[in-house]
């Protein structure tokens, strides 16, 4: 089974790619997919604590199970998210 991964903003810059495809023998959790991504793109490692995940354009927890053809997006903190008000 194959999961499509999309990278945005700081994670896109650090990984150096906008998307990737991950192959698995059996359906992984989002967290297992992240572990594999970290191996392939070590620059992602420091972002584990602040990244959130979306599957098929919906926010999910890291234990969410992935299925063949799913689109997993790595979501860094959104612009107004972490630092309170910017405007």
């Amino acid at each position, binding site marked *: 089974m194959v999961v499509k991964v*999309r990278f*945005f*903003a*700081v994670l*896109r810059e650090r990984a150096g790619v906008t998307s990737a495809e991950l192959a698995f023998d059996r359906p992984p959790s989002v967290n297992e997919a992240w572990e594999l991504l970290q191996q392939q793109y070590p620059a992602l490692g*420091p*972002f584990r604590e*602040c990244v959130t995940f*979306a599957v098929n*354009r*919906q*926010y999910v927890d890291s234990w969410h199970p992935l299925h063949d053809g799913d689109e997993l*997006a790595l*979501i*860094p*903190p*959104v*612009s*107004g*998210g*972490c*630092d309170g008000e*910017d*405007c």
Partner: protein
Amino acid sequence: MDRTTPRARIVSSPIDLGELLASVADVSCGATVLFVGSTRDQNEGRRVVELQYEAYEEMALKEMERIGSAAEAQWQIGKIALVHRLGNVPLGEASVAVAVSAPHRSDAFAAARYAIDQLKKTVPIWKKEVFEGGEVWIGLQGTSTTTNEKGR
């Protein structure tokens, strides 16, 4: 409700505020509130040169639609419209705007405030600030990995 104008839009050119206001006009509504977020010339002591916005567009539009629906469910409003600009946004220009019409102003104010707060919390849009001497992704301040000083 007339839905010929989409409630959520992402644009790459300057936001047309007149058009946005017109899109929520409703003769049964006596109150309209518009919020505009624009690029400031300074942020945390840095002199800002420009902002660059990037989005997960398909999901961002879906989230913005969801915020509009949630506002309509929570308050008595006529129409609501949310728009975000992507790419380079020069100083002083609008990057985001929300417009709400309602029969009464309490609802218009509350829904507009809710919409912009939610938009900034949950919509997957990212802002890179280009300042004199470097650039930084907003939302990551305080982590040493984020500031990417130019020329080092």
